[in-house]
């Protein structure tokens, strides 16, 4: 291991895993090289329409992260790049990158699209899965970063039309590729996945029958930015389908094509697509999902499935489909012949068939991993080392996302943060050595000054200028009240314009700036920086969009567009005059963490944090550490959990930075992120900056199936403990979903299927003459765990599906333990004389969660597990800053997943602990104590726990406030205002609209 460590990390792949890892790293004090093979960051997520289980718009939730990653000072995004060579060792790798030329200078490109309009060459648009066309000069998608076009040289005619069209002089067909060499301390592999190409399964007709589409194509069809602008159409003739079928497990759970694994996400995305497709259809779309096992095992998934079936009317048919053929009468329709579960053959025709394609590792990622000497599993996934969550065979190289094995977005994001946590253990000593902060000159105090406004109107090449009469708008702006300067720019955002803007601010003593140009989403921070460099507070800025909402939408009506631009500018100027500077508040950070819970998750979080040099206080209510996992004999895949746990406990107990408080609980919590004082039940006070809640779960004690009435009826956990004593037992029965997926506990406990299968396999291995039955509702051995299920079947474990309305019946007759269940394939009654009945009992949330949720003011979901800030993209964060969750406290999960999430919580916590001071977000809500009646409205409403009552009035903690404005809107006495967004400015803006100016 290198002694001189490098405080930089390379992240390979800029999908959601790479982006999350990069943001966490950069916020934790590491410089990041984010290497991406395509021309823009984002990966697969931008292609998705909505995301399960929240039905959030995928792009809407991703876009802020794209902007953050793209603009981050300590993240260098290298697109069109591939890793050529990795040398060196953990702590100090040298990496050679080959970068393809873009042929467009991203600094000059304004992303106006004139080049693409001029380009004569149509190319199938891979972003739209080939359902539409793009040009040979293109931008991957509208919100792409870098926000610049790229020349697709393979398809380029070299005609020069784009060069002539580009007003910004950004296109250079002579650009050459380059080789970059970078030094990094660690590497995070996050290259993502490739969707399975169903052409390999000719029986489904993909590529032959136009109305058979892949699920990714269907995402694009549903998407408003897709080939049909979000209208539900079938490809063959553009007609709206009335009846759609989804076929599951296309390219998954298929040994024949060496894809024996489950792709983990397809069940949920198919249910989601069916639900969303129904929303798109006015005529009441008929949707059918053909599946084998419905694997809705994640947090909130089971409810989504139930709702889709019971409320949305999605039909679920348990049958794997043999083939898709052209319809009997209409060849554009699709005929499916299938056997239902009873073996009755049915024929049905559909207008469209969606193939739920699985994931496979991307070919170039496989090549790279091999080149780096990283061993892959039999399917070429880079599976993490056992019980590590993220480690590979090589120290200093970590893996995150679907390349580690199929997984959904929250697990991908979790693993990304976990890789950051793990990387921090290696590079802690080099933290902060390669990052820099931007220094700005001191701000000029503008208090008491009369507003002096400068207005800059952008032509955006010809994007605005060809429609809106910019000189006329400039001339008009000059006459507006308080305006001392108005200018037009070819591109307001170009470097020379920005320099000129800075000079104009100084020369004219401007104290407010208005830019009329494009979208604040992409350009507001850029102009605000210019203000800061010119000694102005960034909030003295107002932006109005005269492109997206004016010139682009009123191209045919130039006069009216110009009038609208005048109105927009007038409103902005009126508002700008009332803008006030906002001072950022900052507080120091106590560089210590409190970890609540001493199970696997808590231990892992504690070790990950302490290993990076932060003080950790670990509180455990029991008298010893280890939690529920102490009762496991081994991991799902035979890992030696006992020694792993003992090692962890010893590590925690001997760590100089970790203090363990067993036999104690949390009694009180005061303070906020960075500065919390927690009191334990023994009265001890702990000061810490962040908190990790890792309270674990509890085993459900069944009331079903005669549990407790006979010593031969056990729970899986009890069976695991007793295994050694049962050598003589011959017939074992497992019943799944005991206390899970039931009214009152409607969630799936996620681990029980794999757990029963593992134990069953063990029983069969010990004595192949045993009869082992697993009675299940759906076998949910997702991802690579499917291997266990397959091995169990191969070993003779008998799986019998039961219906929730026809559950197994357990009876005790003359000392015989009898289990009766309907065998669904034969339709017979199967009576099993069992020696042992093991119940896969549910995992319950910890009882302590309720009290902790009140103490830390963090929410629980309706099942009693902690509720994260966002189910998709913030899986370990609470909405309140500085509090994180890990392990079963969040939802049931297996040991491997617990460890990954615990590392992720630590990784996320480090983004706070790495800072000496925390700054407020800029715009925050403030209370006028004179008007406040301490009615608690704001305290109740705030999702971030920012307001509290002190001295009979609310105060809002600036570093907690996210500036959402909920409290300001709801305060009955208007005691709260959101800085820069107060009534005054908006009234002024509206007044501005109706003011006649001569």
């Amino acid at each position, binding site marked *: 291991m290198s002694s001189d460590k490098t405080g930089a990390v390379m992240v390979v792949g800029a999908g959601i895993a790479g982006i999350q890892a990069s943001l966490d790293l950069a916020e934790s004090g590491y410089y990041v090289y984010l290497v991406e093979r395509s021309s823009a960051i984002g990966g697969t997520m931008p292609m998705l329409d909505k995301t399960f289980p929240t039905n959030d718009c995928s792009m809407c939730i991703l876009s802020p992260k794209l902007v953050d990653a793209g603009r981050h000072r300590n993240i260098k995004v290298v697109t069109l790049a591939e890793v050529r060579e990795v040398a060196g060792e953990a702590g100090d790798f040298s990496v050679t990158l080959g970068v393809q030329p873009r042929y467009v200078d991203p600094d000059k490109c304004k992303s106006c699209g004139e080049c693409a309009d001029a380009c004569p060459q149509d190319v199938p648009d891979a972003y739209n899965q080939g359902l539409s066309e793009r040009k040979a000069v293109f931008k991957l998608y509208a919100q792409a970063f870098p926000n610049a076009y790229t020349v697709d040289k393979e398809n380029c005619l070299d005609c020069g039309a784009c060069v002539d069209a580009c007003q910004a002089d950004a296109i250079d067909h002579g650009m050459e590729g380059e080789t970059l060499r970078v030094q990094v301390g660690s590497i995070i592999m996050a290259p993502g996945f490739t969707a399975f190409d169903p052409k390999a399964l000719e029986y489904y007709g993909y590529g032959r029958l136009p109305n058979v589409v892949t699920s990714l194509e269907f995402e694009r069809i549903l998407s408003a930015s897709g080939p049909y602008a979000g209208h539900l159409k079938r490809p063959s003739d553009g007609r709206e389908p009335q009846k759609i079928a989804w076929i599951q497990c296309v390219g998954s759970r298929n*040994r024949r094509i060496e894809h024996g694994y489950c792709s983990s996400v397809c069940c949920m995305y198919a249910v989601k697509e069916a639900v969303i497709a129904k929303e798109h259809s006015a005529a009441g779309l008929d949707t059918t999902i053909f599946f084998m096992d419905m694997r809705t095992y994640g947090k909130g998934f089971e409810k989504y499935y139930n709702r889709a079936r019971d409320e949305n009317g999605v039909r679920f048919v348990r049958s794997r489909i043999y083939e898709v053929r052209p319809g009997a009468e209409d060849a554009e329709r699709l005929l499916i012949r299938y056997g239902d579960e009873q073996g009755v053959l049915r024929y049905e025709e559909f207008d469209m068939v969606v193939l739920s394609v699985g994931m496979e590792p991307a070919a170039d990622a496989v090549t790279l991993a091999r080149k780096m000497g990283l061993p892959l599993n039999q399917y070429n996934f880079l599976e993490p080392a056992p019980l590590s969550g993220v480690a590979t065979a090589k120290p200093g190289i970590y893996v995150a996302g679907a390349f580690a094995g199929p997984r959904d977005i929250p697990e991908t994001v979790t693993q990304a943060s976990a890789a950051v946590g793990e990387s921090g253990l290696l590079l802690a000593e080099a933290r902060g050595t390669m990052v820099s902060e931007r220094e700005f000159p001191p701000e000029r105090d503008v208090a008491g000054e009369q507003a002096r406004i400068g207005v800059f109107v952008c032509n955006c090449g010809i994007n605005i200028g060809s429609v809106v009469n910019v000189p006329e708008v400039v001339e008009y702006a000059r006459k507006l009240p308080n305006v001392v300067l108005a200018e037009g720019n070819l591109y307001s955002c170009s470097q020379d314009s920005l320099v000129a803007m800075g000079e104009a601010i100084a020369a004219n003593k401007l104290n407010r700036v208005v830019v009329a140009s494009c979208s604040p989403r992409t350009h507001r921070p850029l102009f605000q920086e210019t203000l800061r460099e010119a000694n102005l507070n960034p909030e003295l800025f107002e932006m109005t969009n005269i492109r997206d909402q004016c010139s682009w939408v009123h191209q045919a009506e130039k006069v009216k567009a110009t009038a609208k631009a005048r109105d927009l500018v007038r409103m902005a100027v009126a508002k700008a005059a009332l803008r006030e500077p906002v001072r950022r508040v900052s507080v120091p950070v106590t560089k210590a963490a409190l970890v609540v819970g001493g199970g696997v998750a808590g231990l892992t979080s504690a070790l990950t944090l302490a290993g990076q040099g932060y003080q950790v206080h670990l509180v455990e209510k029991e008298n010893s550490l280890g939690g529920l996992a102490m009762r496991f004999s081994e991991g799902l895949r035979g890992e030696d959990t006992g020694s792993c746990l003992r090692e962890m406990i010893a590590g925690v107990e001997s760590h100089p930075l970790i203090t363990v408080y067993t036999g104690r609980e949390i009694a009180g919590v005061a303070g906020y992120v960075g500065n919390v004082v927690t009191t334990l039940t023994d009265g001890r006070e702990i000061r810490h900056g962040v908190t990790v809640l890792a309270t674990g779960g509890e085993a459900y004690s069944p009331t079903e199936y005669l549990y407790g009435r006979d010593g031969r009826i056990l729970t899986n956990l009890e069976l695991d403990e007793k295994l050694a004593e049962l050598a003589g037992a011959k017939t074992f029965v497992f019943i799944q979903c005991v206390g899970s997926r039931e009214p009152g506990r409607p969630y799936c406990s996620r681990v029980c299927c794999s757990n029963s299968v593992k134990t069953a396999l063990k029983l069969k291995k010990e004595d192949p003459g045993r009869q082992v039955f697993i009675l299940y509702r759906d076998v949910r051995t997702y991802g690579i765990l499917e291997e266990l299920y*397959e091995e169990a079947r191969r070993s003779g474990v008998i799986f019998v599906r039961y219906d929730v309305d026809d559950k197994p019946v357990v009876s005790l007759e003359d000392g015989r333990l009898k289990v009766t269940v309907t065998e669904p394939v034969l339709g017979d009654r199967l009576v099993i004389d069992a020696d042992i009945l093991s119940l896969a009992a549910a995992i319950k949330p910890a009882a302590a969660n309720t009290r902790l949720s009140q103490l830390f003011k963090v929410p629980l979901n309706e099942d009693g597990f902690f509720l994260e800030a966002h189910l998709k993209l913030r899986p370990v964060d609470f909405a309140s800053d500085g509090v994180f969750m890990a392990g079963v406290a969040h939802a049931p999960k297996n040991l491997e997943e617990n460890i990954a999430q615990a590392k992720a919580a630590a990784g996320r916590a480090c983004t706070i602990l790495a800072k000496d001071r925390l700054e407020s977000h800029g715009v925050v809500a403030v209370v006028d104590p004179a008007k406040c009646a301490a009615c608690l409205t704001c305290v109740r409403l705030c999702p971030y726990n920012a307001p509290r009552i002190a001295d009979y009035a609310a105060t809002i903690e600036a570093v907690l406030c996210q500036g959402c404005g909920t409290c300001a809107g709801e305060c009955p006495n208007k005691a709260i205002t959101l800085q820069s967004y107060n009534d005054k400015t908006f009234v002024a803006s509206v007044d501005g609209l109706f003011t006649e100016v001569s």
Partner: protein
Amino acid sequence: METIQSSQLNPGFRDRVAGLVKNYDFSQCLACGMCTGGCPYSDIHENNDPRKFLRKINLGMEKEVFEDPFIWYCTMCERCTIECPMQVNIAVVVRSLRGTWDKDKIPGYMQTIAREHIESGNQMNVSQVDYEETLEWIQDELREELGDPDYTIPLDKKGAKYFYGFNARDVKIYANELQTTLKLFYAAGIDYTISTRRWDATNIALFTGQNDDFNAISQPIWEEFVNLGCEQFIVTECGHAFRSMKWGQRTFWKGEMFPIRHILELLLDLVKDGSLKLDPDAVTEVVTYHDPCNTARKEGVWQSPRELIRTFVKNFVDMNPNGRWNYCCGAGGGGMAMPEFNEKRKAKGRRKVDQVCATGAQIVIVPCHNCMDQFNDLNKWYPDTKGKSKNVHMCALMERALIMPEKK
């Protein structure tokens, strides 16, 4: 609803089955239903759902498995599991279980055929005298037809390029068709031979699963091929013979491997290299082509026959589905030789009848003796529909288009 007692299930049964099929792939079954959907006959008559049958095996219902008529109903066409995601092969399982049968209790007259084949060297018990007389008769006929008094059938010719193996029906029932085939060989001028000793390439043990019979039947013809020192083994238009030779060689032949080809592959080569000349306008009727499962799905020969057809047939219409996905004629797996199940065979054939009728074909090329018998039965059984199309072997239809070379 019947009751299955766990105590009656035999957990060791799977090991016995695995011993027979040489793997445990069948136990990977997910009971997903793909085979039920793929089997053309799972809704034609009772006891024909491969999933149910396999389920009994995997549950360990030994007695019920052996009592299940599925074992003999199944045509072993392999359509159900050709793409089974768990790599189960129902036909292999069925054949293996048939192989456990007491030979006296095998249904129909399959075992009689096997016994006679072993004794006589051919499955129809044609005596050597009859065989040689038939060949002589064909030779005489061809001398006349070809106007070549010196024409001789190349018998037992050492070192001939092609060894031609056929079906005893070619001698006993369709001697005129053997004549046609030899005429095509003559026209193409190929170097081939026919053995006077071992010439029947069929093997009924392909369906009875009795491997001792299989070897007793097929080893001699392979040895004959080696003794004559030929280059390629050409098999007649008979799916079962072709499969017996190909699969049997892969499975049981211990000597050096030699190429075994379907006659239609050879004929296509001869047309393509110009040795055989066909009149492209000779056949104007609507023609369709039946893919024998053994030839197409199991041994991959379905493209060359179509390519061949297109050289002399003007109106070719494929059945749907076809090729690798074809439907069995309904008489596979020895179905022709089990008259006690004729009602089932008739019912199964209905699928094929509908398929043929949908093409509107006047002529069906049936390149298989077994399928041909079934097709002819279907014509009788369904005279109003299928009865309207004529069933022919490929060679017979080709003869209509044959342009004889100029005499030198």
